[in-house]
């Protein structure tokens, strides 16, 4: 076998193309001496992005770890509900969280109305209220919807941990907080790092919320450099900076987990036990988890529900229905493509494959870290050039001009979705394959099934849960995706996300509550699946 199959090489090149294109454009601009713009914009953009990432990283770390620790170590009222409800904010994309929080907290929102009703004030000069549309407001809103990344990672980790250390510590007389700082915190570092990294990558990826809050983050500045100043070279230079920054985050994550072997083997004799909290402590645990769910999901969802039900406009209903149809079609196509290639990648990246192939697949799955804005920037020009080339060829040979096959069509969108979400489908399918093992495949082949037959009758059916799981996750990610869809969608295609963005950017978000609600409802699907799966991992209460 070749050290690197040609198809794998193709996959890596196809996925890397936009970044290579941007790199070339950035260098081209540098050679022309056209560095002014990137140089003026960079310091502010770097500062604001870094501040936002660090604040959100810290806040999601604290909130996610604490909530996971409470839910897996203690028994308190509604713990079982919080166990899954704490994941709900994942259904709310950051831009929707931003829009709804502005509706909720700004001058005409319910909170300030109540403040005015109570104080008799008529303008904001007569009382103090924090401005939600600020960098601090952005950090708050991001943290409230992104903490579940840390929660999910830490929760899963705790459930696999043997309870013996904790029980030993208790017997030796260590109290709850002491055990948290001496055992839980140091031991859970790998999970914490994974969760916080994911949350920070979401911050870098976001475009809708930072534009709405007026944060001059890197993505926002790239966007305005490209769009408002028509400076592709400058935008490419900034995009290269963002990619380098993401590279650093990923390296830091790897470094933080370096050469430590954490034994996740569960000691079967000591099932994880829940300590029953009572009195003030139970109330505190309950309030903490309840507040998190309320702020991260209750407020955005409630606000959307209220706005959508308050006034029904037949025109908006029709727009929403047609956008929903396009969205479902697009997301299904995307899920099909991404899962098919994820399947291939999982096969080729498996442990029995040559190391070069494994490494190449790992590289190909790093696309999830690249912001949609950057990908759109990198995809538009090469696809346009390719279309031109194809058309010249067909015109020369057949006198036929097929038009825009790649850049002006769904293909460009599918391309970006593949780059961004390959990791999602790959990791799910890889886990599924590892769990199932290869023996059934070998058996099928031994019994005389051809490659195709074995694939259809054995491989696919036995992996069905993993395939469906991966397809669902990719589907939902596509429904929520905003920046790339906004910039690349073909003529006449309006998705739920672009419909909402269009209204919100025109200062008319309330009109778009219905499609926004639809996005959140779709986003709930994987949360429900997760909660059903996790309810199987029972935790025994200590009686």
């Amino acid at each position, binding site marked *: 076998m070749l050290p690197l199959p040609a198809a794998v090489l193709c996959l890596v090149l196809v996925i890397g193309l936009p970044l290579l294109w941007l790199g070339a454009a950035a260098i081209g601009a540098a050679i022309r001496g056209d560095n002014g713009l990137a140089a003026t914009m960079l310091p502010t953009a770097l500062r604001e992005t870094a501040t936002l990432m660090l604040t959100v990283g810290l806040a999601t770390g604290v909130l996610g770890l604490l909530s996971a620790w409470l839910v897996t170590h203690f028994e308190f009222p509604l713990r079982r509900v919080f166990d899954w409800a704490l994941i709900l904010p994942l259904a709310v994309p950051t831009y929707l969280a931003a829009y709804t929080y502005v509706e909720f907290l700004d001058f005409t929102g319910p909170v300030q109305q109540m403040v005015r009703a109570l104080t008799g004030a008529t303008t904001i000069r007569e009382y103090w209220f924090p401005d939600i549309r600020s960098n601090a407001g952005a950090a708050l809103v991001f943290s409230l919807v992104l903490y579940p990344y840390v929660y999910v990672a830490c929760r899963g980790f705790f459930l696999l941990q043997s309870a013996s250390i904790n029980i030993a510590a208790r017997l030796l007389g260590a109290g709850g907080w002491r055990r948290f700082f001496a055992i839980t915190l140091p031991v859970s570092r790998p999970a914490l790092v994974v969760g916080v990294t994911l949350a920070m990558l979401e911050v870098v990826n976001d475009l809708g919320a930072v534009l709405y809050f007026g944060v001059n983050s890197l993505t926002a500045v790239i966007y305005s450099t490209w769009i408002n100043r028509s400076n592709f070279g400058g935008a490419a230079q900034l995009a290269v900076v963002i990619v380098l920054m993401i590279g650093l985050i990923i390296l830091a994550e790897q470094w933080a987990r370096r050469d430590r072997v954490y034994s996740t083997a569960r000691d079967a004799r000591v099932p994880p036990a829940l300590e029953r909290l009572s009195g003030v402590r139970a109330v505190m645990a309950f309030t903490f988890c309840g507040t998190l769910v309320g702020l991260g999901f209750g407020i955005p969802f409630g606000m959307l529900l209220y706005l959508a039900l308050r006034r029904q406009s037949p025109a908006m209903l029709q727009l929403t229905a047609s956008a929903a149809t396009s969205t479902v079609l697009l997301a299904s196509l995307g899920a099909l493509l991404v899962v098919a290639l994820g399947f291939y990648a999982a096969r080729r990246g498996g442990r029995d494959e040559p190391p070069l192939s494994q490494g190449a697949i790992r590289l190909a799955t790093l696309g999830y870290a690249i912001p949609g804005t950057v990908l759109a920037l990198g995809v538009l020009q090469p696809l346009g050039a390719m279309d031109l080339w194809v058309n010249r060829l067909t015109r020369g040979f057949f006198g036929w001009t097929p038009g825009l096959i790649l850049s002006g069509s*769904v*293909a460009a969108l599918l391309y970006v979705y593949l780059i961004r979400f390959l990791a999602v489908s790959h990791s799910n399918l890889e886990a599924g394959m590892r769990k199932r093992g290869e023996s059934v495949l070998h058996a099928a082949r031994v019994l005389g099934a051809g490659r195709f037959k074995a694939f259809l009758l054995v491989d696919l059916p036995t992996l069905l849960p993993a395939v469906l799981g991966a397809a669902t996750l990719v589907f939902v990610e596509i429904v929520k995706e905003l920046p790339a869809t906004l910039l690349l969608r*073909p003529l*006449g*295609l309006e998705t739920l996300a672009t419909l909402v963005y269009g209204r919100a950017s025109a200062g008319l978000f309330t009109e778009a509550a219905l499609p926004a609600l639809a996005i959140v409802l779709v986003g709930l699907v994987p949360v429900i699946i997760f909660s059903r799966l996790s309810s199987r991992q029972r935790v025994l209460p200590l009686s």
Partner: protein
Amino acid sequence: MTVFTRFGAIGLATASLALALPALAQTGEVNIYSYREPGLIQPLLDRFTEETGITVNVLYAGDGLLERVEAEGELSPVDVVLTVDIGNLVGAKERGLTQAFTTDALERLPEAYRDPEGHWAALSLRARVFYVSKDRVDAEALTYEDIASPEWSGRICTRPGDHPYNIGLIANRIAVWGEDRTREWLTAVRDNLAFAPEGGDRDQTKAILEGSCDLAIANTYYMGVMLNNEEEPEQKEWAAASRIIYPDAEGEGTQVNAAGAFLARYAPNEDNANRLLEFLLSDEAQQIYANINYEYPAVPEVEPAELTQSWGVLKPSEASFAEMAAHRDEAAALVDELRFNEGPQG
């Protein structure tokens, strides 16, 4: 495995073609990329289809359409691009994305409102004016220079400086005052801001209602659209807290920008595109611009809406669109240099 991937590839190729097909040119169609909010433009396009039977396909995006047209090159399906400022029209021509309209309807426009070679046409005009709080501002008249004085410290609000509307205003100031004076002025205005620029023009009127600023820089027609917003009646309340002052009405004049259209260089439906322009410049369409969108019609024979006239008399700045467009890049560089979007720094 290979069989599977091959099947997958064929399936996907067919599916994406099927989705792409409606976007390709057919007879009886015109394809539009629009920077304008769909709510403002849809009634016009519906009337056009009703009258001509020509189907209109629209891609609405607040941003990035010129970049699309450029990347799509000679294969672009677009016929007409509707923009919300003059900068995009002139910029499109400079980038070689346009060609000349052939219809005589262009002559309904004064020369200042169309490209000398007929590549683009203004369709409606909007003045960038001051919205001031009815309760907290007494002034009857103000100049652009006035809002640079310390008296306005912490009282001004506007959308981000690099938005085309503000770039247009700053470019106009450069055309009138020159770059140095404009830099001084913009620095002072930046330091008078109540908070770092955010949101759109409607959001600024909300900030006036809220009391967090007293004077907003915004376009005229938002007042009309908001005062008559039946779908979101709260916006009537936002708008009702402000009144409009035309800056420099007694002096050099108020900065005016134009929403307009250009004909794409590779338009597949050129004839229909010309018919669309004829329609958009007809009395009927111009009246829709005036009475539904509360803009100033670009065709001089058509009157603005009564509500628009009630705000005062518009005296347009003497600097031409061409001069304004010529200073766009300097204006954008100034916004960056002064870090306008970071808000007050004084």
